[in-house]
């Protein structure tokens, strides 16, 4: 009895293999729901106009104080000062760690600087 059923199963599998279709081709199309959430709109922020020249102007180099990046910040200031000596390149340390906002520094920069370079890790 077992031999008979094994033979039937083998024949069935062979027939299935002979008429096999590409994966998905025999399936009925279905409709599914979108799994994604709602993205917020993006409002464009026009960039600030650039000055005709940086000569005689102050640019803040904002150090966000990512751990152990001070040598890079200092070398950046020195490199810019050597290449563009008519601009005043000033390092400003942002308060707190790189996670924290510093509205006072941004207000200071708007009054006392013509631009800013912001360094972000890593």
């Amino acid at each position: 009895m077992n031999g008979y059923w094994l033979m039937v199963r083998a024949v069935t599998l062979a027939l299935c293999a002979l008429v096999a279709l590409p994966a998905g081709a025999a399936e009925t199309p279905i409709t599914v729901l979108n799994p994604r959430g709602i993205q917020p709109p993006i409002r464009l922020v026009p960039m600030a106009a650039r000055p005709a020249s940086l000569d005689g102007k102050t640019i803040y180099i904002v150090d966000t104080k990512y751990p152990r990046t001070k040598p890079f910040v200092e070398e950046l200031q020195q490199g810019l000062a050597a290449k563009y000596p008519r601009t005043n390149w000033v390092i400003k340390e942002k308060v707190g760690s790189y996670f924290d906002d510093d509205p006072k520094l941004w207000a200071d920069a708007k009054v006392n600087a013509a631009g800013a370079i912001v360094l972000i890790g890593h």
Partner: protein
Amino acid sequence: MPAVSIVTARFEELAKTTAYKKGMPRQRITFAPHPVTDRTAEIARQYLAGSDPISKQPMLQQIYEGLAKPLIDEERQAGFLDREARPRLLPPDTPTNLERMFHDSQWTDGMAIVLPTEERVAEMLQGTSRRPDEVVGIMRPSPPHEAWEYTVEMVAVNAVMAGARPEYLPTILAIASTGTTSLISSTSSFARMVVVNGPERNEIGMNAGIGALGPFNHANATIGRAWTLISKNLGGSGRPGETYLGSQGNALSYNNLCIPEAEEGLPEGWQPLHVQKGFKAEESTISILSGWSLNNIAWYSPLPQQEVIMNWLSHFFSFGTTRATLLLDPVVAADMKSAGFASKQAFAAWLGQNSTTPAWLYWSTHEAELKKAQQGVEPYASYLKRGEGAEIPVSRYASPPAQGGTGIASTNSATPIEIVVVGGGTNTFWSGGDFTYVASASIDRWK
């Protein structure tokens, strides 16, 4: 005001997509070789004398021009940017093709999913009385990123995909309601933990016993998995290079250590976690903890167990060195009660008072104290004399953490050491890791 940013080249995609999402798609960015952290002044000088590895332009000149070069029309534009359309239903296709498309779109965790047909989602929604279009919350990969919004139905869709049953939906909605992603964008490869408390644990058949943290229970597995899918699809998280930067990733993120507390195994006087956080014992809640790693301590010692745990706390080191969570088997909890600790809080306080800090770690995290020590100020001077291999009698777990989480918890009572009791009592073993409490939320309000 005119500004340029400097980012290391490894984060090109992150920097550009972030600028786009913040509404400044043409932000002037100069990329530096990666990394700049832990590099000498000489190497920094070489970097700056060279070119931006992305644009191939000289770095210093590009920075200068970023501040001085006149804007082009596209940089002055106002208005709105188009976002990806979000139809409620996706175009019909075969199940095979749809599943492939879900994987290719990074909407899954890489494992097989249950496709969210209308029938399955409708059945899932039977698990809650809430309206399908009700907004559950917002979620983002980390604070600087944009937040996405999601409804009850969207959470149900992801619950279906995870293989969850309708009766799990209130628990999954409670997790989603915290707005806490399980896939934080940080390079440090965070992990999350979710602890379920109250009657719901047993009503939906969660396993707090043998193998609670392993792949042995449908509810534990799929609720935890649903959080990962929700984080990806509803929280805008988990896109490597863009919204996920974890350098090595974290294997715990597959199901986020989803466990119920073994409340029945708590010694007398030891409160369940949700009661510690201000909920009533008869309420059902989820609590979220955040960390990086978990040690499974399977070791016999001639020392009393509390001293083994205390010594582990002294020497355990990972990214987070000032917070810990202990997962105690009920047998260990009972032993601690017998050792005289009348509550979790009493045990945690004792550990906080008696654990120490390895000298190398103490001095590398206490610069001000090191200066005092070098000036002869006590007790720091005496600590310094002990040498690098000594233990400093200052616990890393003594001070309470800052208020964490999202304000979802009815009372945020994060403590330096959290204790959860879980396990089947087959041995006197326990686990510990650098997890800290983030938030709790009611399950009952989502039924």
